[in-house]
């Protein structure tokens, strides 16, 4: 054999047929699925104050979150929310590994839903493998067609719901009934529908293995006290069939491999492909129950616990370690700061823009006059009349109307003229304050600093 060997740096995907499994963790995973999906599919339909309760109106640049209306000026809250999410994820990962991946990540949840549909239409694992190996036939085509149709419907419904958070969903539903979406609504519904169909139906574990960055940097949050799904080598090895008593608890039935959605063997230890879905724990426990051996050959444990035979109490004691405490402290700090900031937030904003063309001018009776433009934003959903007050220079008064009325979520540029008697203030810039207060709600008040110019 003198021909040079060639090895490939890429490979075709090997289809994974996860075996169905039931058990306590499986029930927990389905509970999470129901909770997250009920929230996702139903929240869009809730109303509040006669409008959609949760609506991100990108065109009008207003985010409606139940009683709260956020404007682009409130962008800092989005940053805080993202930091909270990140630290929450870090802390949970440090304590219990990739529970987010296994129980709540949309990729896992939708894959689980799509697998359920696949199972209902194509049958169990062995039936699915057999069907895929069959030559093309009407039966095969009918089964596959039905599956893709069902996937497509779920995916479209998902895309529709997603777009429903950005464009009022009731209006969108009306448009859907007579197929009169606008071009961008079409694009995004189909785009998100296709992404759901492709990721949950076709890509599945490849998203976690090759595309998800979180899977790759999770290891920096792990340490030897992190709860991971572990195979107890000391208990299981040497493995062997039940009939030969090898001394190890593992009977090498390969159930843990068959149920794995990423197709790995957990007995090889912690691997980056493991998304922490716990299917192998349920599988192994059910086998152990059948053969009458104690459960827990595969279980949530830590490296330390396995090496040093910790009791569950000792494992719990090791949860409180510097890494977790620091993540927790930062998380608590940011959650507290954001809650406080939201509590103190005034739903009224004002910018004072002094006219640049004119410094100060002399008007009748020798008064000095300056012109300002008040950029007022009423971010509440009620109509308010605001009183304008000025202070900072003696005899400072308003030559324009001192009340202004803004409708629900209205923005207005309101020019005002301020006057002070000749001789009041210093020549040059004088610091003044302009405040705005709702006549019907003293809590609705903002004060902005400005400059009153007296000609030299």
């Amino acid at each position, binding site marked *: *054999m*003198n*021909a*040079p*060997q*060639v*090895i*490939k*740096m*890429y*490979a*075709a*995907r090997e289809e994974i047929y996860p075996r169905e499994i039931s058990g306590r963790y499986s029930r927990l995973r389905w509970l999470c699925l129901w909770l997250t999906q009920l929230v996702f599919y139903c929240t869009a339909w809730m109303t509040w104050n006669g409008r959609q309760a949760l609506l991100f109106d990108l065109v009008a640049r207003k985010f409606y979150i139940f009683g709260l209306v956020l404007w682009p000026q409130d962008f800092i809250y989005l940053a805080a929310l993202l930091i909270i999410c990140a630290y929450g994820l870090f802390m949970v990962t440090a304590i219990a590994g990739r529970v987010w991946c296994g129980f709540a990540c949309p990729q896992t949840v939708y894959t689980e839903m799509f697998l359920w549909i696949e199972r209902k239409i194509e049958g169990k694992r062995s039936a699915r493998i057999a069907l895929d190996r069959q030559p093309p036939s009407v039966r095969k085509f009918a089964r596959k067609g039905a599956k893709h149709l069902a996937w497509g419907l779920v995916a479209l419904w998902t895309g529709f719901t997603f777009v429903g958070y950005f464009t009022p969903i009731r209006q969108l539903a009306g448009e859907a009934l007579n197929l009169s979406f606008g071009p961008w609504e079409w694009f995004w519904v189909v785009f998100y529908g296709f992404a759901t169909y492709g990721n949950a139906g076709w890509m599945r574990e*490849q998203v976690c293995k*090759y595309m998800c960055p979180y899977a790759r940097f999770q290891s920096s949050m792990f340490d030897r006290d992190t709860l991971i799904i572990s195979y107890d080598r000391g208990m299981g090895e040497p493995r062997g069939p039940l009939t030969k008593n090898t001394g190890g608890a593992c009977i090498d039935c390969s159930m843990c491999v068959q149920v794995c959605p990423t197709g790995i063997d957990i007995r090889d230890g912690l691997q980056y492909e493991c998304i922490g879905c716990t299917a192998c724990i349920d599988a192994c426990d059910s086998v152990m129950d059948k053969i009458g051996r104690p459960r827990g050959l595969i279980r949530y444990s830590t490296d330390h616990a396995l090496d040093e035979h910790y009791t569950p109490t000792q494992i719990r004691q090791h949860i409180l370690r510097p890494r977790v405490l620091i993540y927790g402290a930062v998380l608590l700090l940011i959650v507290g700061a954001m809650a406080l900031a939201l509590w103190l937030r005034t739903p009224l904003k004002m910018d004072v823009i002094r*006219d*640049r*063309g*004119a410094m100060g*001018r002399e008007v009748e009776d020798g008064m000095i006059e300056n*012109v*300002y*433009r008040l950029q007022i934003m009423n971010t509440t959903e009620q109509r308010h009349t605001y009183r304008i007050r000025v202070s900072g220079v003696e005899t400072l008064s308003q030559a*324009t109307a001192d009340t202004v009325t803004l409708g629900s979520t209205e923005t207005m*540029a309101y*020019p*005002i*003229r301020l006057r002070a008697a000749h001789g009041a203030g210093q020549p040059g810039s004088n610091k003044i304050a302009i405040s705005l207060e709702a006549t019907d709600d003293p809590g609705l008040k903002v004060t902005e600093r400005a400059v009153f110019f007296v000609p030299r």
Partner: protein
Amino acid sequence: MSDFTNGFWNIYIIILTVLGVAGCAILLYTQATARLEPGQKTDGTTGHIWDEDLSELNTPMPRWWMWLFYITIVFSVVYLALYPGLGNFAGKLGWKSSGQYKEELAKAEADYGPLFNRYLQQDLKAVAADPKAHAMGERLFLTYCAQCHGSDARGNKGFPNLTDKDWLYGGTPEIIKQTIMHGRNGVMPSMAAALGSDQEVENVAHYVMSLSGSTADPIKAVFGKAKFGACMACHQADAHGNQAIGAPNLTDKIWLYGGSAETIMETIRKGRNNTMPAFEDFLGEGKVHVLAAYVWSLSNDVSASPLAPVASNNAVAKP
């Protein structure tokens, strides 16, 4: 795209671009596989050994990922054929950023133009009485006019107050619209040579001040009156000005540049040159129409317009 200083750079860019794309394709093709020596054992590594004993496990990437890389190369070839990128070659689509800007501008005009243009059918006084048009006019004013005339439209030195009844070129809605559409260029020539000495200039300044009842030196004013003939061509014999050429009325207390003796002397000595730009091309007639009605309404009672009740009823009837 003709901004290369000579033809060499055009060729240079084309060669670099083509070499870059082709290089990527070749690299991708050759690195997708590894050749081993006959009989070499790899034990799941790539077969390459660094520094005597370092080797790398072969964990192959998915095949579809390779296809994505090839698709980027196809994309770049199609892109370079359709859009500018290969030196001076403009691309089959003839796309230009300036062209896209013009398209977007035309689309915005098509979207928003009708909102303003529908007022063109209405008389300016009726537009002034329409609250919706008033709000639109105010926004336009704050965007395009407030820089010079002030947010309150009361002007500034050299920029007329638009809220009083004194107009340089006339204050009917039609003339205001004409002023905004075509702009104005107001010129007062230097009168120093015509008047002669500095003393004469001061005398005329005091006469001008006396016209509006300001405190002036009566003796200088008497001498100044004798020389005022030089000003009459524009400001008229009675000093009431001439709106046809924008010559201001000198008998009121409204001064564009200031009414002190020093400022008036400066005006006479050096002359004044003042420009209001034309907005016809920039804003279009629809917006100017709405703006003119708004500016007129600043110094006029819109409810006094005979058309006002009808117009405002219409506006109120709409939710």
